[in-house]
């Protein structure tokens, strides 16, 4: 029977429920329909089955991934469980820069249907955390308020580029053309919609096949399903029942699916029966046969369009409704087949509602026949039930209100009751227990609005047992159908009732510890707009500002290409790697990397390469090397953590095989500042990319070429690898080209002037920033002098010379020239004393003697010691002299910070 593959992992145990429903011999896979997850310390097991929404373990414990389960299979060895999923994304998983596209604040519980072909949709089955509830909200509707925090809402579709309205069809994976697994449900649904009675008949006649199809549903081919269908038998249903006996609760849903073939058959039979007899009495009686205690009222909030007329009525209105209902019933099956629209039309209740939109209507014809039929029956049953036991209904409603999902707003109270009723009907549909039911169940999600199916199970397990007994014993098809149907519904309801209840608790437990006192960092905006540059020189100045981003980076083509190739290959391969970039300041390292990322992002937008995340940290922008972890984590996931915790989280993220992982490109600027004594920050940064599942590309930038050799210990340097690149200082030609390209045909400089600047800078440092700054200053000088001289208006040699002088000439000489008489004398005294001593150092006392002598020579009244010290200190504060601490008083040691020649030159020219 069922195999129990148990493995302990994260204190969760996963095992298959039931036997494989299908097998792919070629791939050596065995498909299952559900899986149970038992968590240590919890008595109840959670079950996830196909079509259900589940949570997948991700790197963020608070926000696990959300997906819909499409397939479950195990490989040959039976060890590895794999799940095929349709992903949903949370807002926090959407790239930061794209979030604006939403155009509004996301609802905290909002998720998005994720459409990205590049995304791996197979995950390890053992990463499944449990089930979750998802509600579909049509685009124009507001989010339901006051609902439990555990329900997620899906409204839009995210296709990695934009948010689009989500076609409700997509919420049904089987129908979604995007959904990768070609499940046999697809064709089936397509078969369903025909409202044509003949088709219905055919369908009924084809019950068996369809049933078999549905058995093979989970396998990919119909042939198989047929094959398995043959195997399918009462025995199987029996086993399912037994299981349902054995295991109370969560796993049941799977069993339902297993039973579905038989149910299908029975359903059709009932259908036939209904068509023939249209006896509600049978049903009621059937219902009556079951002990009152076991009546399961499952409330499904899916407002089926068919059920509208019932939805209308709150509980109290049931009785008035009833005549109408019966009338309808009498109306007959045929009308029922087609009958949704008319019913909708005579719907007296305006409250049924805007949300239910054309889409529903469009959906109706498709399924009208079956649905209508189905709807009819349950409604009758329900009504009878309601009649028999109003208290029960009330209870049901109460329950319904209790359920976290649906604390409907007052304005919707009617609607709520409508939902209640409709949900009951839904339940009844489930009673009929067939695939279509299942499908419509799935469809409800999209078909209608904001209501998530919630089912409440009032049934005791004993009833179930009884039910099971009936099932096993009854060979009569009708009976069997009925029994299995009921059991199924009960099971099903239990599943869905339990799972959501369980998941919430699981989910909310690690409630997000968001800092409430989060001030948004921003600079107030200016009242008046910034003025645009007015003339050529201003324009040139704006273009020459270092901050202005050029369209391209000239003279760094080779480096650009190398980095581009490196990152691109890593992104495409989904691997990781490190690169070390060195070069003196102002040689365009960071700019080039940014440029690379920009163009890679562009090509990612055009789907040429897979998407990736770009994260940038700067050693200078953190107070402590360990803050690097915090910043990376925050940029990756928006979480805040202490450095240690962040390191642990990142470690986990980069080493765990997480699905749906984008490549992360991490730029570490000013790497040398991440140096710590144990070098663990660097070690981690370079170690992560080597992990198999990390998908991390690390680009590091620093100034020194031999940084790895100089400061890194071997194990760190080794991990950094040998991918290195060195940016040479710009040559004068390159600098000239940079300026020219920046100016971009704005004629503001004379050619010679440009050449002078670039030659000068290239000779000194090759720093492009310096070059641009000088040019900018030159334009200013030109602007100021322009009014006086009638020059060409261009920046000429003289202006550039002046700017160069300002920037490069040392100010010592002019400082000496502008010093006071005593200060100048003191400098002279210093030099005289140096000459006398033959040393480059003297004490204040020695210099002071010289100073007094010089004063007498100059005919000035000699200064006293206090004055002399003041003068000395003033020179020291300008750093013309280098002084030791003033504490030493007379024995203060004095050295010159300028060359003696400079001092003499400055004093002589005076």
């Amino acid at each position, binding site marked *: 029977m069922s195999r129990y593959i148990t493995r302990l992992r994260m204190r969760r145990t996963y095992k298959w429920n039931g036997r494989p429903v299908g097998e792919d011999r070629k791939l050596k896979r065995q498909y299952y329909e559900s899986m149970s997850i038992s968590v240590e310390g919890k008595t109840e097991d959670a079950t996830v089955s196909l079509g259900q929404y589940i949570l997948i373990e991700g790197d963020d414990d608070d926000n696990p991934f959300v997906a819909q389960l499409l397939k479950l299979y195990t490989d040959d060895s039976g060890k590895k469980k794999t799940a095929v999923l349709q992903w949903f994304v949370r807002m926090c998983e959407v790239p930061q820069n794209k979030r604006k596209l939403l155009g509004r604040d996301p609802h905290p519980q909002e998720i998005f249907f994720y459409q990205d072909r590049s995304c791996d949709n197979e995950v390890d089955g053992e990463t499944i955390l449990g089930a979750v509830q998802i509600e579909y909200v049509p685009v124009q509707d507001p989010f339901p308020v006051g609902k439990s925090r555990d329900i997620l809402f899906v409204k839009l579709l995210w296709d990695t580029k934009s948010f689009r309205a989500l076609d409700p069809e997509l919420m049904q994976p089987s129908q979604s053309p995007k959904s990768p697994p070609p499940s046999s449900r697809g064709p089936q649904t397509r078969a369903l919609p025909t409202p044509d009675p003949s088709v219905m008949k055919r369908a009924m006649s084809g019950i068996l096949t369809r049933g078999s199809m549905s058995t093979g549903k989970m396998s990919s081919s119909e042939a198989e399903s047929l094959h398995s269908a043959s195997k399918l038998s009462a025995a199987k249903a029996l086993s399912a029942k037994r299981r349902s006996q054995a295991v109370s609760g969560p796993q049941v849903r799977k069993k339902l699916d297993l039973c579905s073939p038989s149910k299908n058959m029975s359903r059709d039979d009932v259908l036939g029966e209904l068509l023939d007899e249209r006896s509600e009495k049978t049903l009621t009686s059937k219902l009556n046969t079951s002990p009152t205690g076991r009546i399961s009222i499952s409330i499904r909030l899916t407002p089926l369009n068919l059920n509208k007329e019932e939805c209308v009525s709150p509980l109290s209105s049931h009785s008035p409704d009833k005549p109408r209902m019966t009338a309808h019933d009498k109306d007959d099956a045929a009308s029922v087949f087609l009958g949704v629209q008319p019913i909708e039309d005579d719907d007296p209740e305006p409250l049924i509602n805007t949300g239910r939109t054309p889409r529903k209507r469009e959906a109706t014809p498709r399924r009208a026949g079956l649905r209508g039929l189905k709807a009819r029956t349950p409604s009758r049953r329900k009504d009878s039930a309601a009649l028999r036991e109003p208290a029960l209904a009330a209870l049901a409603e109460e329950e319904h209100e209790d359920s976290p999902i649906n604390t409907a707003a007052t304005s919707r109270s009617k609607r709520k009751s409508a939902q209640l009723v409709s949900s009951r009907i839904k339940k009844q549909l489930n009673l009929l227990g067939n695939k279509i039911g299942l499908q419509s169940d799935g469809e409800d999600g999209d078909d209608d609005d904001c209501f998530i199916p919630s089912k409440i199970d009032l049934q005791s397990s004993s009833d179930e047992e009884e039910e099971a007994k009936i099932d096993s014993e009854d060979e009569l098809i009708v009976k069997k159908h009925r029994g299995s149907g009921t059991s199924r519904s009960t099971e099903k309801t239990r599943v869905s009732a339990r799972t959501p209840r369980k998941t919430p608790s699981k989910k909310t437990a690690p409630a997000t510890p968001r800092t409430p006192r989060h*001030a948004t*960092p*921003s*600079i*107030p*905006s*200016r*009242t*008046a*707009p*910034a003025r*645009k*540059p007015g003339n050529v020189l201003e324009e040139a*100045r*704006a273009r020459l*500002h270092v*901050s*202005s981003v050029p369209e391209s980076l000239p003279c760094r083509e080779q480096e650009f290409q190398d980095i581009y190739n490196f990152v691109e290959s890593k992104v495409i391969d989904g691997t990781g790697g490190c690169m070390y970039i060195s070069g*003196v*300041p*102002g040689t365009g390292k960071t700019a080039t990397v940014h440029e690379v990322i920009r163009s890679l992002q562009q090509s990612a937008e055009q789907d040429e390469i897979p998407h990736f995340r770009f994260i940038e940290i700067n050693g*200078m*922008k*953190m*107070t*402590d090397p360990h*803050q690097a972890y*915090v*910043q990376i984590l925050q940029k990756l996931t928006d979480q805040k953590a202490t450095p240690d915790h962040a390191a642990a989280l990142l470690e986990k993220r980069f080493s765990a095989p997480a699905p749906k992982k984008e490549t992360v490109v991490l730029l570490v600027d*000013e790497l040398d*500042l991440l140096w710590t004594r144990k070098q663990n920050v660097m070690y981690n940064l370079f170690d992560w990319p080597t992990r198999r599942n990390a998908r991390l590309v690390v680009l590091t930038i620093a*100034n020194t070429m031999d940084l790895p050799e100089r400061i890194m210990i071997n194990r760190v340097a080794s991990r950094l690898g040998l991918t290195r690149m060195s940016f040479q200082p710009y040559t004068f030609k390159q600098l000239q080209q940079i300026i020219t390209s920046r100016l971009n045909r704005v004629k503001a400089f004379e050619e010679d002037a440009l050449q002078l600047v670039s030659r000068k800078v290239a000779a000194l440092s090759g720093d492009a*920033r*310096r070059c641009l700054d000088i040019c900018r200053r030159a334009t*200013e000088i030109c602007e100021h002098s322009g009014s006086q001289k009638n020059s060409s208006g261009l920046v000429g040699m003289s202006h550039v010379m002046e700017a160069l002088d*300002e*920037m490069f000439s*040392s*100010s010592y000489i002019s400082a000496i*020239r*502008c*010093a006071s*008489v*005593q*200060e100048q004398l003191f400098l002279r005294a210093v030099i005289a004393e140096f000459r006398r001593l033959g040393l480059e150092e003297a004490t204040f*006392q020695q210099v*002071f003697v010289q100073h007094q002598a010089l004063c007498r020579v100059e005919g000035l009244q000699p*200064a006293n*010691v*206090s*004055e002399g010290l*003041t*003068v000395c200190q003033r020179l020291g*504060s*300008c*750093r*013309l002299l280098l002084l030791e601490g003033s504490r030493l*008083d*007379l024995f203060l040691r004095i050295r010159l*910070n300028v060359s003696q020649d400079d001092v003499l030159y400055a004093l002589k020219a005076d």
Partner: protein
Amino acid sequence: VQDRCGCVLMMLCDGVCVQAQKLLRERLCHQKLPDQPVGLDSQYKHLLELLRRTAVHGESNSVLIVGPRGSGKTMLLGCVLRELMSLKEAQKNVLLVELNEKLQLCNETKSLGFLVFQGSFAENLAFLLEALKKGDKSSSRPVLFVLDEFDLFAHHKNQTLLYNLLDVSQSAQTPVAVLGLTCRLDVLELLEKRVKSRFSHRQIHLFSSLSFAQYLDVVRAQLSLPPDFPDPKFSDEWNHSVTKLCEDKTVEEILRRNFNGSKDFRSLHSLLFLAVSRVSVSHSTLREADLIEAWRLISVDSKANVLHGLSILELCLIIAMKHLNDTYDGEPFNFQMVHNEFKKFIQRKSHSIHKFEKPVVMKAFEHLLQLELVRPVDSGVCKVQREYQLMRLMLEHGQVMEALQRYPQCPTDVKQWALSAFG
């Protein structure tokens, strides 16, 4: 009684005088910005233009204002900011953040008008950078960062703050102007190379090139009462007296000495402040005597007064030390040597001074030590006996002689001993 009445009456009358004094004191204590910075026109224009571009065009800039102490860096900046804020287009558009070395970063965020939470330095820095990063050239308010004592920021760990501010000024984020004030000419050499590369190398130097004539003009302007002074008669009188004062030879001599000492206005202001403070009801104009007295107060040697308060014995010890210094060319000495020298003097030449016991001399020596007129060579952790610990005299030859001249009732033999070439 009459006297007292007269006093009260005069005080009432001379409310004007007090008013004038108050006004001048305010001016001299830098409580008010001058209307126009003196002799800094080009720098003023340059800085104003720069800040105006930041405010109006949203252009990021960084600039250093370098000048010796008292050269008017802060004053210049104050004037420029005053002018800038009076511009309509800049008025509401600029945020000003003033920092000096002592302030923490959280003050910085606070002064940016943010809601400040008690976070760690790391958080604050991240917060600030995030805030600055969010802004852009055209829409955010420019922020002016004024870093007083810029050189001290360079001593911060890793120069993180400087790097980040300058980096913002060099990238397309919130427009900022980073203004550093420093008196160190070599401040750029303090910056790490990556910080230096991000600095625009724009320096505004404040070197005053005043001539003495200009200096006198400044003195006159500083002392003159403004034309809108409430009592025109008094102000006329006062201004006339100031003009006359500046033409006086002694006053000019004093001012020149001050000018020779330093060209900055701070020393001038302290001189004038003392002089102005001497103006009282009894003489309501500034006289040369006031200025001379003020100069005397200012230029007095700091140790002279200490020397005047010494006992004869202590003075004798100082003279002995001076002789030792002369003999051994400034080599350090110990108490025993000083005592020997002193004993020689007592035995040979002294008539007026009695023989002191060695402990008494020791006590006097220790007093000198306490006054820091004598200092141990190596700040005395060594276990040498106190008598033999090496010392240095912290006085110049001239200071000792000067003190002796002025010492009240100094015995002649002591004076002669001091003047004699060798002990």
